[in-house]
């Protein structure tokens, strides 16, 4: 077992453990921070999947954007929300959570079943990719290639998503404006 594999399993474990802690935790603030850990661990997993740029983006946008946004929203929603959120008696295994738990487990069983049945390593297109060496090597950087692709091959989606992002941000700003400042 190579050190990469060990690292993968370790980070996978951290990811899942933190995610589960998010799920289990009664404390909203704690769960938010555990989510923070999850996102970092995922970034590591992206690196292990040979996607450095995505990992960086993940950290920048998620940790720097979304998480901060969530924290802001949480703070902005006031003391009552905080208190209410802290007060919730949300035990992991309880009668009210049981259906959700069962559902999740069921999904897990089905998906794992599907994963093993699908035998993803031997898919046709993956074999072809292996055949024509269309595989990212562990020591090459894809940032250049991504930049070129983004500006050539994926230009239209890139522009569309930028507009979308713009609209979303404007919308979010509009929604979160104060009542009194209605135009």
């Amino acid at each position: 077992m190579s050190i990469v594999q060990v690292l993968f399993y370790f980070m996978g474990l951290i990811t899942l453990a933190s995610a589960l802690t998010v799920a289990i935790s009664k404390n909203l603030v704690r769960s938010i921070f555990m989510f923070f850990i999850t996102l970092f661990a995922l970034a590591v997993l992206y690196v292990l999947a040979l996607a450095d740029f995505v990992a960086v983006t993940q950290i920048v946008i998620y940790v720097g954007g979304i998480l901060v946004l969530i924290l802001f929203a949480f703070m902005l929603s006031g003391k009552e929300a905080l208190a209410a959120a802290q007060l919730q008696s949300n035990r992991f295994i309880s009668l009210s959570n049981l259906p959700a738990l069962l559902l999740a487990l069921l999904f897990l069983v089905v998906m794992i079943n599907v994963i093993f049945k699908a035998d993803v390593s031997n898919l046709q297109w993956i074999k072809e990719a292996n055949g024509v060496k269309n595989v990212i090597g562990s020591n090459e950087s894809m940032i250049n290639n991504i930049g070129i692709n983004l500006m050539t091959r994926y230009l239209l989606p890139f522009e569309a998503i930028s507009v979308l992002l713009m609209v979303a941000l404007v919308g979010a700003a509009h929604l979160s404006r104060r009542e009194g400042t209605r135009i």
Partner: protein
Amino acid sequence: MSKALPYQDIQTIYFAIAAVVLPFAAFVINFLFLGKSKLSGWVSTLAILVSSVLAAIIFTRVWNVQQIHVKQIWFRIGDSYLYTGILLNNLSVLMLGLVSVIALPVHIYSTAYMKDDAGYSRYFQYLSFFCFSMLALVVMDNLILLYAFWELVGFSSYLLIGFWFDRANAVQANKKAFIINRIGDIGLLTAIIILFNQYQTFDIERLFKEGGLIASSTIKNGLWISADIQTPVIWQYIACIGIFLGVAAKSAQFPLHTWLPDAMEGPTSVSALIHAATMVAAGVFLLGRVYPLFNPAELTTLAVIGCFTAFMAATIALTQNDLKRILAYSTISQLGYMVMAMGIGAYATSLFHLVTHAFFKCLLFLSAGIVIHQIKHIKEDNNLDIDPQDIANMGGLRKKLPLTFIATLIGGLALIGLPLTSGYLSKEGILITTYEWAQGKGDMMLLVPLFAFFTSCLTAFYVARMLLKVFFGDLNLQFLNPEIKIHIGDGGWRYKAPLVFLALCSLFPFFSFNPFLHEETWLLYGFSAYNSKSVFDIMHIAIPVLVNGASLLIIYYAYMIYMKRSTIVLPQSGLLYRLSFNEWYIDRFYNRVVVKFVLVLSDMAFWFDRKVIDGFVNLLEKIGVFTAGIASWFDRYIVDGILHLSAVIVQAIGGFARRFQNGKVQYYLFSMLLAVIVVFILKILIWN
């Protein structure tokens, strides 16, 4: 009968119908138009007058001339055609004439007798209705209508007996008469049904004429054989017994005679017309109609019963103190003679006696009516507390009521059967015939003429007693109450005329020009067919002489007892006296045994009704309630339960479905995901 009749016959038929219908018309007019008017008496009298004139005309045309029978189809049941019609033969025209002629003086008499009564109009309605029923009864040609009018006669008799319905005795009496007549009616109806079954017809002429259906049927080997039907002979006996019951009830024969003395509760004029002269004769008339039905053995029985009735009634009459009761028992006695005469085959003599008896008994009753009326006057004038019908209170009335006395004397002598009266002719005829009949029958049957003879002597005694007590000697009332004032008399012409008329009719010339020989009576030749033998021998002289001699002796004896009081006074406490005075205890026997038995039976029936039938009904009711309870329970818990269950199910489904619409986003999501996973699982399962 569709063949053309001569004009005169048709006219005769119309006369007959008119004679029958006129009293009915009088009844209708009285009933509808003349509420309380005194006119009603004259309407009825006029009707009966015309009827009697018509009857007389019919009599002259039919009597010994021809028999007229018209009929037409009345209705049809299956293949049986029922005819209705009028049969005029010697018997019916005789009865037609007799009834109307007797009814006429009674009507006239009644207009005076009833003039102060509150129910004057009602009385004449009833009387007219009775006359109609009786006249219709005698001319009808079939048994069904005969029966119908027989019932109507009984019914009108019931009405007239209970005419004074505010008197308890009268109500009791008419009830008794009605019930006893009902027994007879049932008998007659049974007989009619049996006859119809046997001969398939109700037609009297076809059944009973000479060589008719009955004459041609025979009894052989225990079978009663008619033209096309054979039935066990027992039916013939039952038919005869039924007829006899009818006769016994109407004509007051033992054992159904007890109603007649009680029927004297009605007005005396009614007693005269109905219970002496006409209605009671209906039984004998019926015997005359159905005479061929009886075979010799049955006729003998009839004779014995008639003889016994005559004897019994005569003994009872000996000791009665009620004037009308004496006459009532003498009527029963005379009717017994008639039935006996029928029984011995003296058909013509019997009818002859019927006619003569009608006249003199009517006469006697009307006279008694006058006597009672006058005693009642005395009673009311002097405020006495007496029974106006009790002969013990009377006496010496011959001076006060001379015409009544003479009339009663004639009637009484006729009743005894002394020469020069009509009664002599008919009664001697019966006695002689009885003797001749008994001669060939053995010693036992000699008892019948012996008893008849003895009865005749008894008759002489009680008639003499009655006459002596009422008309001779001194008025007992005055003797007991010396201060009373007496203003009485025979009354107006409406009293006198009927008496004179009837008294004349009770004398011999009306029937025979030879006052001593009944064989020369014209009436007898009308029924020659049944006049068995008319051999003239020494007995025809010996018997009348013997009987009359005995009667005279008895009268003299009675005279000695009651007038001179010289001879021994009769014991008033002996067994025989009590037997006679209490009317042989027959009534008491009926009350004690029959009535009590019926009451016990009714009690048992009542008990049965209450306990068993009501119990059964109650049980049914309980079962019904119980079933209803079950049904209710079933309804409530099963039917309603099903409804409620369905409602609950629908509610549960609704509630269940409602939960999906609870507005919880996470729940929707959960459901959605569940659906997705289910689809996935299914896909995997199918994939495998």
